[in-house]
């Protein structure tokens, strides 16, 4: 007689902010098998390019996901701009950079909170999200939206940030970073956190690379990959290097993100120091014709917008390959042989964003 326990994990499950389903097969609490299934939030928005003007599609692109919304719009716009050979003003590029990093901060703090919650550390969740609100405030003040910023458009950005505001933002970030450091300290040092994360969901460097993992998931395993290094928007002018950890476990992935928080603050500071004055957009004339693979570094890793157009107002194909999709194979590998209590921790350790993954 088998001693299996078969449990449906999700799609509705309190640990999952978004629906994903796992068939969990357990023995005691050891996971014998975990087969994922997704598709609960698939909308099919890529198909909307057939209906929307390519310029208006950016509103839809940024609604691929409310967490990494801004960078999606950057990715999309960049694709169109490169097809059309539009020279985006420097200032706009810098603003895009700043907002991208804000968006990363917001996403990582959100994730840190959810991650803490997944291992039953409620206070940490609350404190992470408390800090995150400050980021959102800055976002809302500068772009007009808390989570869906809508400030990036083909040819530039919609809103400018005044220099004095930029200075204030940096000042706020300084205050914030001490809070962030406190939090990171908990994630790095606390025994109970380590108990839940160290050695859990290990994936080796080779495996991570060959499975195509991206972003912090890959960097946590020692794969140094960060699309920002390709120098899109203004990253080429800024000094930073990918945050890499070698543990390959949940702890390492967590550490990568925690350190990236501070890195983002640093990048923002650099960008604010270097931001040139000038226009924030250029006029876009005509329609795109051609194709382009536009790659951007999302909080969760490399995101790819493939755009193919044929000179009409509606582009032909927009394909988005989001980091979560790329990380799912690694996740499947990680889940084998863990404990049931680890399942939420491991699932969240890749920072899954199903909204992105399924579009």
């Amino acid at each position: 007689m088998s001693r299996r326990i078969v449990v449906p994990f999700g799609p509705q499950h309190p640990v999952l902010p978004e629906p994903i389903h796992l068939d969990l097969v357990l023995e005691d609490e050891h996971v014998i098998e975990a087969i994922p299934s997704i598709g609960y939030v698939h909308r099919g928005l890529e198909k909307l390019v057939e209906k929307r003007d390519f310029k208006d599609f950016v509103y839809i692109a940024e609604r691929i996901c409310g967490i990494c919304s801004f960078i999606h719009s950057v990715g999309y716009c960049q694709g169109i701009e490169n097809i059309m050979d539009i020279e985006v003003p420097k200032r706009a590029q810098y603003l895009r950079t700043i907002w991208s990093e804000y968006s990363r901060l917001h996403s990582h703090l959100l994730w840190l909170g959810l991650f803490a919650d997944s291992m039953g550390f409620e206070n940490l969740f609350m404190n992470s999200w408390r800090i995150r609100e400050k980021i959102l405030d800055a976002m809302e003040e500068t772009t007009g939206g808390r989570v869906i910023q809508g400030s990036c458009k083909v040819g530039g950005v919609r809103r400018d940030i005044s220099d004095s505001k930029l200075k204030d933002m940096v000042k706020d970030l300084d205050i914030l970073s001490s809070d962030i450091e406190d939090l990171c300290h908990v994630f790095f040092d606390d025994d109970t956190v380590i108990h839940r994360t160290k050695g859990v969901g290990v994936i080796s460097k080779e495996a991570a690379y060959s499975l195509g993992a991206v972003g912090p998931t890959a960097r946590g395993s020692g794969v140094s990959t960060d699309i920002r290094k390709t120098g899109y928007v203004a990253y080429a002018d800024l000094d930073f290097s990918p945050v890499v950890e070698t543990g390959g476990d949940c702890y390492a992935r967590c550490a990568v993100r925690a350190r990236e928080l501070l890195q983002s603050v640093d990048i923002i500071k650099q960008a604010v120091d270097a931001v040139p004055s000038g226009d924030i957009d250029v006029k876009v004339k005509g329609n795109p014709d051609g194709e382009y693979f536009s790659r951007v570094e999302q909080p969760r890793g490399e995101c790819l917008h493939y755009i193919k157009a044929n000179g009409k107002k509606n582009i032909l194909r927009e394909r988005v390959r989001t980091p979560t999709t790329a990380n799912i194979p690694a996740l499947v590998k990680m889940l084998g042989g863990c404990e049931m209590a680890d399942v939420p921790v491991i699932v969240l350790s890749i920072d899954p964003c199903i909204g992105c993954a399924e579009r």
Partner: protein
Amino acid sequence: MTIEEQKYTDIMKEDLLKNVKDKCESGYRLVQIGCGKFGDIFEINYSFEKEYSFENLRIKTTEGEKVPSISDIYWGSFIYENEIHDLFGVEVTGINLDFKGNLIRTTVKAPFNVKNVTKVKPEKKETAEKKTEDN
């Protein structure tokens, strides 16, 4: 700002596995597999990256033709291959984790294979209601 160079190599479907294997052996990672339908042709891009150099293999196929899976070479490719199958109706053979059309269940089968899909409103509503009653 740097603009990434775009590299494509058009290859024959038959050579796919060989080419992918080459890529794998020379240390590329699989970035994505993406499909698009242009006219009657399905264009499938296999994107690879190695040290920030981004390259694509492209094959073309048509309705009803089968495409071999590369999941023996890149284990993780199943996610893209299943997706292509579900959204485009392209049959991919030999996937290691074959969801058999259940990765993404859609109202319209293979929606990207249909020209100008909009929702077939009235008819779909009806089925929705029938489903509800069944519950």
